[in-house]
């Protein structure tokens, strides 16, 4: 069944595929995107990663989705704050040992100041309506595609507008929170162009607001008396944006990394506690929390520990690595070869804290000019307000790093 058959759905299918932009216009648009909007991976293997067609959503449907994302964001923040005070629960999240120890040590102490909190909720439209598969809470990417590329596509489709500009919203929030005369360091892992393009795009958004921004690797950052400095500079930074997963920090061997958790004077973004809800095992601690998580319970499929699934002799589960990214450790009998699936389950049983099982759900596919595709619609929430959308399509049964970035445009007056 695809969106064409939405009469069979419990609710109306909210996404509509637009016509492709003519090839010569799209070539020009692609070039602008790569040269001006830091989209530096427009081709991954044999796949072009920019869709030449948009997907439309009505204003009412977008408002509903944005509202849901904001509620989920509020619940996420509240749950993270409670988790900080309950270090015994951290073990269940699958955090690396060094990070667990730091969080435990800091329990009850003031966390380092933070600015411009951003998270992205990954939604999928199913027979039952919108389901959220996970929250990219720590280091969500996709800003260039959600803003730069989508704005270029919006120019081709009068009567439609962007769902929001996550990069410019983030930069505006940073400008409000930080010393406007200071320099902001944007940290990412050397070697990864996909990450470098994210920080480069955010840096350009900061510079567009007249702020000073500098892209760095972890070795260029040092901490003195709680202030963050560039290794080569004498004056402290105004803020540090971390596009470097928190769970990598203990292993990168840089002294002072614990300042991201506590003891810093320089504000950081995102706060370290984001790594707690980033864990795919986050739902496993919900029952233990006093924080109400009603929207999560409604929108997210059931999750449980891998051993529980084996005890139930149950099928229909997706196995996910606790700190997986871009679908790199997502296994299911629907798309994983039998041998690889067995190996993944064996690893999950050997190291259970590194994995979680999530109940499968059927995503309603989209008929597109490139064939039938599954979708993942990420909704950004910045400082509690919905700030844009990042839509990815995939001809495979789940959305991974080779997905096709697609502009989501909101129909005006609808």
């Amino acid at each position, binding site marked *: 069944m695809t969106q064409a058959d939405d009469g069979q759905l419990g609710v109306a299918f909210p996404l509509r595929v637009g016509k492709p932009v003519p090839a010569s216009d799209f070539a020009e648009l692609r070039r602008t995107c790569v040269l001006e909007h830091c*989209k530096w991976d427009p*081709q991954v293997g044999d796949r072009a990663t920019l869709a030449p067609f948009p997907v439309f959503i009505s204003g009412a449907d977008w408002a509903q989705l944005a509202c849901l994302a904001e509620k989920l964001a509020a619940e996420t923040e509240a749950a993270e704050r409670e988790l900080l005070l309950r270090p015994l629960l951290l073990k269940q999240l699958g955090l690396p040992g060094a990070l667990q120890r730091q969080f435990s040590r800091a329990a009850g102490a003031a966390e380092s100041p933070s600015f411009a909190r951003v998270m992205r909720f990954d939604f999928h439209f199913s027979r039952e309506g919108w389901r959220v598969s996970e929250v990219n809470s720590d280091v969500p990417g996709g800003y260039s595609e959600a803003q730069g590329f989508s704005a270029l596509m919006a120019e081709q489709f009068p009567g439609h507008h962007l769902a929001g500009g996550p990069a410019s919203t983030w930069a505006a929030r940073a400008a409000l929170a930080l010393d406007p005369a200071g320099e902001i360091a944007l940290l990412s892992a050397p070697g990864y*162009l996909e990450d470098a393009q994210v920080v480069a795009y955010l840096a350009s958004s900061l510079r567009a607001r007249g702020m000073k921004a500098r*892209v760095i690797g972890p070795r260029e950052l040092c901490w003195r008396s709680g202030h963050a400095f560039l290794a080569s500079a004498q004056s402290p930074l105004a803020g540090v944006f971390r596009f470097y997963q928190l769970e990598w920090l203990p292993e990168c061997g840089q002294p002072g990394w614990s300042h991201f958790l506590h003891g810093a004077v320089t504000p950081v973004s995102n706060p370290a506690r984001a790594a707690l809800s980033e864990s795919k095992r986050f739902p496993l601690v919900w029952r233990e929390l006093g924080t109400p998580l009603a929207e999560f319970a409604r929108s997210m499929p059931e999750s449980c520990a891998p051993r529980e699934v084996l005890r139930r002799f149950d099928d229909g589960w997706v196995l996910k690595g606790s700190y997986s990214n871009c679908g790199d450790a997502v296994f299911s009998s629907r798309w994983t070869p039998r041998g690889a699936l067995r190996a993944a389950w064996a690893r999950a049983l050997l190291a259970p804290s590194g994995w979680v099982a999530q109940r499968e759900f059927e995503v309603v596919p989209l008929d597109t000019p490139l064939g039938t595709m599954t979708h993942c619609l990420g909704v950004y929430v910045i400082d509690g307000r919905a700030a844009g959308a990042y839509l990815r399509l995939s001809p495979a049964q789940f959305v991974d790093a080779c997905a096709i970035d697609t502009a989501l445009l909101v129909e005006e007056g609808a």
Partner: protein
Amino acid sequence: MNKKDVFDAWAPSGARWSNWVKPVLFASLAESDVEGPGAEPEIELELSPTWTSPGVALIVDLPGEQSVQAGLALAKLGMRPVPLFNALPGFACAFVDVRSIQRALVASANLLRSMSLPADAPPAFLLDSLRRAVRRAVRRQRQLEARERREDWSRHQNRAGEWYFDNRSLSFSTDFPSGATLREHGVERIILIRWHQVVPGDLVATLAAWHRAGLTIEIHDAASERAPRVWEPPRWLWLRRLWFEVVVPLGLWRDKSGAFGGHVPPASG
């Protein structure tokens, strides 16, 4: 000329391999970088006639601008140079000097455009062999440069001895077309051109995948007259996979670059 013109020269619309061109160095060009045509690069590489045989695609893995110069020389023989430089240009001080690559790309743009290569010209993928520069080697190089400028090297260092932007990069198999696509377009043989015959670690997965797809892989040492060597995936490849899938996840090993914990994780978010 502007950066759009430079990009168009290297990734012309309609050419078969243009979509694979990595845009980062073109996107990072400032207006001042593209003023004036610049000196056309000199080509020092001695080209082997086998490199341009039918059914051959090349990977040119030479240091910095030499890779661009080789690409231009190969273009004169009808091959389409496809720049795959992944490093971000830094500020004044960077681990890997990509400014010289940018200058070479700009200086060659007009000449390359004037060649009017056919859209289906076979590809010569250009890499910078210094992309994963060993930190010690870079530091030594910087010391020598500072000495030449009669500057005090230690003045530029922090206590950790590091003061430059870490812009090292990796080549991934997803940077290239698949073996099936190459074969579909008549490629049967891949020749890797280097200054010696050692295959860099980040290219092993790419070459192994192409080998599995039925392509023949050869390595040519451009610095000597040694005969080309046919490359087979190393027998220890399974051991390497075991290492990455079992030992590394247990947190027992750190990547040499120190950039990240564990082995080459996927990009974030």
